């Protein structure tokens, strides 16, 4: 989450106080990303230094100081909104590592390991869904944030399902030896 850009987005609606920015930030993100006051003022200081926001009044620090977005800030915000985040490198996923390791450890039933994680993920999803059925019905920001989390967890459970099925199939019919070109391909992918 880019806090500077989120604050610029809030300032694009009109001048605001620091405390007000913190409250609105939390409300808009469904309170899924809490923010402390210190973070808000530190970020505002940086935005001011970079000419993306400016403070009103006599320049005194404190809660009474209002901030506004500059023309440069508006341009920065517009560019940021349209720039896709870097998703090219797969994240280091601890769960993926655990399943890959479980396949190799003697005496460990990888399907049992998979089921333990699946159970935990679905319990977590049940909690998010409860939130969606409650507060998120009247809070659009929260509903969107909860959806994002549910889709993320859902993707992980789907991966577990696929891994489960693939490992079963491999156990039933062991894979043939890899063609000569395959290791090369793997290394190329890993290097990216």
């Amino acid at each position, binding site marked *: 989450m880019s806090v500077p850009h989120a604050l610029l987005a809030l300032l694009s609606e009109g001048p605001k106080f620091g405390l007000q920015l913190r409250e609105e930030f939390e409300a808009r993100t469904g309170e899924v990303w809490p923010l402390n006051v210190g973070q808000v003022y530190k970020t505002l200081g940086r935005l001011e230094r970079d000419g993306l926001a400016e403070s009103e009044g006599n320049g005194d620090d404190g809660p009474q100081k209002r901030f506004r977005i500059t023309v440069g800030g508006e341009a920065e915000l517009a560019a940021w909104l349209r720039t896709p985040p870097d998703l090219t490198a797969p994240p280091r996923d601890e769960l993926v590592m655990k399943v890959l390791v479980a396949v190799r450890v003697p005496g460990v039933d990888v399907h049992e390991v998979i089921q333990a994680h699946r*159970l935990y993920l679905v319990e977590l999803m049940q909690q998010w869904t409860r939130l969606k059925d409650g507060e998120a019905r009247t809070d659009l920001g929260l509903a969107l944030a909860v959806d994002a989390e549910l889709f993320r967890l859902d993707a992980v459970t789907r991966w577990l*399902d696929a891994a489960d099925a693939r490992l079963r199939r491999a156990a039933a019919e062991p894979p043939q030896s890899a063609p000569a070109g395959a290791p090369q391909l793997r290394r190329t992918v890993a290097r990216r």
Partner: protein
Amino acid sequence: MSEPEAVSVLELRSVSKVYRQGTAEVHALAAVSLSVRAGEMVAVMGPSGSGKSTLLTIAGSLEDPSHGEVLVGGAVLAGLPRAAKARLRRRVIGYVFQDFNLLPGLTAVENVALPLELDGVAVRRARAAGTAALASLGLAGRACRFPDELSGGERQRVAIARALVGDRRLLLADEPSGALDSVNAEEVMQLLHEACQRGVAAVVVTHDAQLASWADRVVFLRDGRVTGQTSPPSGPESLLSPEQRQ
């Protein structure tokens, strides 16, 4: 004997189902026990071939188990005469299918009223109950439309109204939102969830974790056996623990 505690609306006691394919035996279900209370939604998750649909057809008395007992409303199904079983299916159990199964030649309200009419309820009373069921699902204005004049989401809401009409207490749903986009699918699950909050017991079979997460309890099935189930859910406040707040 078990203790006379609150009677489950549905109870499977060590239910097994064996199909014969030539000389081979296929164990579709192996000693599955499951109890669903009034007001509870249980989701059954598992891959294709795990026995989910078999579990549902046995729970709905559409098929008999090879071993074990099925109780609906405390009554052992195997002990019931054929006619009584059929009555139970008409009056107590409602079914929701992936492809809605509405009759194309009937309007929404006629589809919903049909189970009551088949059960001998006077047409006028059955239609009134159908209209009320549709209204409770936000379809009051759609009662006289034919299925092909309705969207997919609306069709499934009509099917849910049909499954609930006449105060039925057990709802059995097989991938009820499989044919819908995610927003409509969620709406269907929300409606089923609300029906449970009004006291209906539901078993929803799905392979979709997002839909299963609407349930009070998720039971995992694999090769005909229960491999685990979720614990009673904790409140959403636990999601906002300090570890989450970064």
